[in-house]
């Protein structure tokens, strides 16, 4: 059994959730910046690409720099359409961003719980209790 493979889906999801949290934090930070447009990422596509390993940069040599397991390169952000753009060109719906941030935090915790469960399962298997 490959421990890496057992942990991989949730570990990747965790790192992608962290990345999305960063994007949403940026949106909330720039809620009053003129001409700023809210950004988000396609989580499903990013996770699919990261798990397949096809979407990101792949290293072909041990001396190549691995960009965070290929996760960073495989995610592209897109601009979210705002319901109420302001006069100064700012297009951030604070409420939407806050809701998404909270949801993302809960998803992160869910991934964390799955990981914890897997680790506990593995530990009890190793100890043979």
């Amino acid at each position, binding site marked *: 059994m490959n421990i890496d493979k057992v942990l991989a889906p949730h570990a990747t999801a965790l790192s992608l959730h962290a990345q999305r949290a960063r994007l949403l934090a*940026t949106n909330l*930070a720039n809620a*009053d910046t003129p001409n700023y447009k809210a950004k988000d990422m396609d989580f499903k596509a990013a996770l699919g690409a990261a798990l397949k390993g096809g979407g990101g940069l792949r290293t072909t040599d041990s001396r190549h720099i691995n960009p965070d397991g290929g996760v960073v390169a495989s995610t592209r952000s897109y601009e979210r359409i705002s319901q109420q753009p302001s006069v100064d060109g700012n297009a951030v719906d604070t409420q939407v961003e*806050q809701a998404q*941030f909270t949801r993302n935090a809960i998803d992160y915790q869910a991934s964390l719980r799955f990981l914890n469960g897997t680790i506990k399962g593995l530990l009890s298997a190793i100890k043979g209790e």
Partner: protein
Amino acid sequence: MSLFTIFDIAGSAMSAQNIRLNTTASNLANSETVSGSEQQAYRSRQPVFATMLDQANKAVAGVRVTGITTDNSPVQKEYAPQNPMADEQGYIYKSNVNPVEEMANMISASRSYQSNVEVMNTSKELMLQTLRMGQ
């Protein structure tokens, strides 16, 4: 760990909102200031926010204040010859601060500050839980 950068992002936003609150406080404090000439009259100050792009990752960025602009709208001129600040014609010049606008600005800054504190707290919680992973 990428959650760490959220502290920088939310922190930059909090400091920018803090500057905005400071200018609002300054504007409100000086809303009744009078002076002897149009040039010396207090003019409303407003910070200018801009996105601070991260060189490594273009998508995530904090906020910075690029400068403080002064409002160039005309100041109020009032005839008050008994005022010690009055000029030769007996006029004093009041500030061009709009208190209602400033109050709205203050509420908006305080709400934005709060939402960034919330972001920071949530991130801290997530990081602490991540540190406890496998225990």
